[in-house]
Every structure is written in C-alpha cells, then in structure tokens.
C-alpha cells in the first residue's frame, strides 16, 4: 500500500498537484510512481518560463530501470523548479511528497477539480 495524502490531487499519469495558498500549484510524482520506477538516478527538469497545457510533457524521470515522462497536471507557466533534484534525484524515492519537481502559475484552477482526489487515485492504482 502506498502513501496517498488526502490533501493532494492526482493525475492518472501519477503526478500529484497541490494548490498553494498563493494560488500556485506544486507538482511531484506519487509514492506509487516512485515505487514502480525504482531508484531514481536523474531528473530532467523543465525550465522556468515554459508554458504548458494540461498533460503536456514537462520533464523526464530516469530510474535505473527506465525513462518516464512527467506531465503537467494543469495548464500554466512554470515559476520554479526544484534544483535539489539535480544533485539528489533519489529524493523522489525517499520523500515523494516533499520532493516537488516544479511549480506552475495555473491559467485555469478549475482544471484541478478534474484531477483525481485521493480516494479516486487509490482505486485507479488498484489499492
């Protein structure tokens, strides 16, 4: 059983999204995703200023096993990237909900409502 915090929203592609009090959205990958990937050894981060539509490719997570695309769960402009992941990509394994990957200024916060809540994500991954 993986950890699925109740205050987050999830994409079917296993990203989590958290709406912050300042209106920005923080994005990472779920505990279930990191578990399936295995040891993460490299994260190709997006760049600040990139503008995404929901479900656009927004980086790559590479584990010892394989490379896996990260998709932006919402539309918007990238305002921050977690550069700690350059030196310590394994943070995605050890702390998947602390180790965020990027933050976006969403262009349409209603898109968050279309993402899965914790219960729906739990059932989507068969737990």
């Amino acid at each position, binding site marked *: 059983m993986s950890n699925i915090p109740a205050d987050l929203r999830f994409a079917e592609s296993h990203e989590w999204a958290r709406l912050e009090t300042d209106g920005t959205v923080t994005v990472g990958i779920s505990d279930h995703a990191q578990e399936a990937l*295995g*040891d993460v050894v*490299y994260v*190709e981060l997006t760049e600040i200023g990139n503008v995404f539509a929901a479900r656009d490719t927004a980086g790559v997570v*590479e584990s*010892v096993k394989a*490379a896996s695309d990260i998709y932006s769960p919402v539309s918007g402009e990238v305002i921050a990237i977690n550069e700690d992941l*350059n030196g310590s990509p394994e943070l995605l394994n050890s702390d998947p909900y602390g180790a965020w990957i990027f933050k976006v200024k969403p262009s349409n916060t209603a898109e968050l409502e279309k993402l899965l809540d914790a219960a729906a994500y739990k059932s989507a991954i068969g737990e």
Partner: protein
Amino acid sequence: MGQRTPLFDLHVALGAKMVDFGGWDMPLHYGSQVEEHHQVRRDCGVFDVSHMTVIDIVGSQAKAWLQYLLANDVGRLLEPGRALYSAMLNTEGGVIDDMLVYLTDSGYRLVVNAATGAKDLAWMRAHLAGFEVQLVERSDLAMLAIQGPHARHKIAELVTSARGALIQHLQPFEGRSEGDWFIARTGYTGEDGLEIILPAAQAPGFFNDLVGAGIPPIGLGARDTLRLEAGMNLYGQDIDESVSPLAANIAWTIAWEPAERDFIGRTAIEKERATGVKLKLVGLVLEERGVLRAHQVVRIAEVGEGEITSGSFSPTLSKSIALARVPMATADRAEVEIRGKWYPVRVVQPNFVRHGKALI
C-alpha cells in the same frame, strides 16, 4: 505465470519485486537496486541464478565433440576443476549463446543462459551425430551466486569444513565438486565470489542460512548494473545470433590454434578476420547528467554511426555508462542521441569497474 526457481516463495517473502526474465519469474530487487549494487561491490550478497541451464556432457568423445561445438578449445582445460568461457557459434559465425565450461572428473559441465537453454539443447542435439556423447540437462539442480570481496570468507564459515577448505583453496575460474555440491570461483559481477550448484531441494535452506547470516539477497537489476560495470556481455542484448564474436569484445575467447581444429563457425569468422572486422564493442561514458540506454544512436564524426547495446546508470561511478557497437575506426569521442538531443560521450575500453575500483 513464468517458470519458478526453488527459491520463488522465499523471494516473495523477502519482499522482492518479481519480473519476467526469459520466461522465468525472477526478483528484480528487494527494495533498492542501487543499494544492492553497492552491497556487492563493498561486501557481498547472494543471487538466485537457478534459472540458468546446467548441462552435463559425458561420453568417450565429450572432448572432441565440444572442440567441434565451441569457439574456445576445451583442450585447454588441462585438469579437472579448470573452466573457460566460450561462445557457441552458428555456421555464419553468429553467437548462439555464451557459456562457462568446467572440466569435471566425469566429463564437462556447461552453464548456459536461461532464455536460450532450450534453443541451445536443440542445437547441441542436432550436432551429436557421429559422436559418442550424452547430454544430461540438470533441472534437478539450483544455483546460487555469492559475490563480493567478502563472499568467500563469509561462505567458508557457513558450510561444512570440507567445503570451507575447498572454498579457501579455489583459484579464480576453478570449480570442483564436494559431495553433491559443485563450487566454483566464478561470477558475473567483476568481484571475487562463488557460484554454487546444489540439489534443488537444498537450495531454500542454504539461501535462508545465508540471509540469516547477514548476506542479503540481490536482484537481477543489480546483477545487470554490476555486469555492465564489469564490461561483461549480456546475451540477447550485447550479443546474439547476428553478432560475430569478433565484434563483441570476446575475440580473446576464440581458440584459433591449433589451426586444424574445425569448429562450427570457424570458416565464417576466419573469412571475417581476413577481410577486416568492421565493428567493435566499446564502452561509453556520459560526462553530463542523463542516462544512456540500449538502442540509442551513437554518432562518430567522420566515421559513421553505431548503437548502444546496453546502457544504464553506474552506481559505482555515479554517472551513466554503456556498451555500444560502433565502426572499427571509432577513436575516443562520440555523441549519443537522447530524446532528440546529442550528448558528447567518452569512448573507453569496455571495462569500467573491477574489484571495487574504477578503471576509467
């Protein structure tokens, strides 16, 4: 459901993530592949390699038959206990499989790959005509590899005194029977260690004893990164039936002498050698961050193109490494395409780590 080794239930109980490997349900890792990799380089760990196929060769013409079947020459095994590595070629000079061959008191013991076992046996049986030889597939046996700098010392203390004494005295690439166990100082990690072939019914108890003594189980994931760092080929990835041993960094295993020894594939690879080998297997090191993967394209300025055959992240070197087949004229620089971008790589001897030490 795939085939299962005698240790399947133990792997599951130990929390292994099980995956299909050549038709077998095998442990990929038991938590962290990278930690397991370091465990073997720094101390030791135990692998279940019971999926590999053990074939005993007996009969008055076993030697002559293997000298015809294999590119290396079992005539070089001068006394029981000695072992050699060989490719088995088809008539075009492609590699049907690679294997270890031990000379035993009663004949020869071959250890071939899991996914190719059935194919190998069919090929061998098709070439028996005219030889007084019997093949005995030993599916009654299991095989454990205990690898790492402390492997022999630790195992010697956990087995009978006779087996412990044998383990202390074994030379590299030597394998001998003790009772119903066959103990060899061989492996696939670039570290010292043992491969122990024993009756399947004894394998779960022995494996349990090892884990209980603090020798952790290691999955196939770490086995792959360990062998990649050691520059060892993986059949089906770095070598296959379309690849000549001359283009696979295993030309040293071809016994050209005596010249009158006729082995399957000899004519083809002699012709290739005479006309000039066009490709070679090299090592690549990515100096930038990123991960090299099998099938990525390698570009060598003013020379041509090649392809990565195996690539991964090297836990020991903390950077990505790969094996690649490239044109013979390739020198020390190349580029690799990763997701549409070209990254510079260093071209090195395909031998990155041995006995815990970086070689590049």
